[in-house]
């Protein structure tokens, strides 16, 4: 057994002879694996789609840019409604000026409620 070739052949034969684990060993290894395996992480479940009008409103809100944008639009709408409904008496002088005889204007009172400030005592 001094030939390198013989020793190489012997080693090659060993390499080609696998050591098969017994069924019992495999079972022990798998039991260990199961015992220490991290639990699967909880999956994020998407919320159920809302039906009908709610879904349409939700899509519309998303299309307009989300909740903040919708809140801004709502505020602007309420402000417009207020201006439309409120008593326009404070603007009467100005409207008279614009709608009235423009050529006869000598004096334009833009702030009629502040006359008192100009009164000398």
């Amino acid at each position, binding site marked *: 057994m001094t030939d390198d070739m013989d020793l190489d052949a012997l*080693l090659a*034969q060993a*390499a080609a002879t696998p050591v098969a684990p017994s069924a019992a060993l495999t079972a022990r290894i798998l039991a260990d694996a199961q015992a220490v395996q991290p639990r699967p992480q909880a999956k994020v479940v998407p919320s159920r789609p809302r039906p009908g009008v709610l879904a349409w409103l939700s899509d519309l809100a998303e299309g307009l840019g989300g909740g903040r944008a919708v809140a801004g639009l709502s505020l602007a709408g309420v402000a417009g409604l207020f201006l439309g409904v409120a008593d326009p008496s404070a603007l009467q002088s100005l409207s008279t000026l614009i709608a009235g005889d423009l050529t006869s204007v000598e004096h334009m009172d833009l702030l009629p409620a502040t006359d008192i400030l100009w009164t000398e005592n």
Partner: protein
Amino acid sequence: MPRDTLDEVSDETLLVLYANGDPSAARLLTTRLSPRVLGYATRLLADRAEAEDVTQEAMMRLWRIAPQWRAGEAQISTWLYRVVTNLCTDLKRARRRRPGVALDDAPEVAGATESAVSTLMQADRMTALQAALDQLPERQRQAVVLRHIEGLANPEIAQIMDLGVEAVESLTARGKRALAAILAGRKAELGYEDDADESEAVG
């Protein structure tokens, strides 16, 4: 993930799947890796029961490290061979500390050698090789088994044994020379002379 698909994925991917809770990954990793781990441990320890315990422990360490495994840092098989090498070294140290099995117990060593020779006379080539491997110094045995039986490249063996590549080359060469010396004169018992005769007869 379907079994067919899992068959094609790398060990590292399987370990990630195991860490994520995939139930099939552990079985595939065990099928792939445990024969190599057991074979290596058996050749280092020459004791099947101890080799099985080492295999189970090495695989347990793999399962435990799975969630922290750093991808691309090392091959799983290389890491396992290293774990097995260390476990076997520890086991042999423990054997030496046990009363009655100390290496300096000359009568027992002499008895073991006689037993090895006796086995060599009766057994097949594999048993003879194992008996010869048992007589090598530990590091030489590790290097020879990893290089010539497990078929690893020297750089990978260097990683496993925590040595330089040149040191591995030196260990393997010395180990092979020692093996040849141990087996010298046993050629006929191992059947190699018969093979040579047959080759000549055929030629």
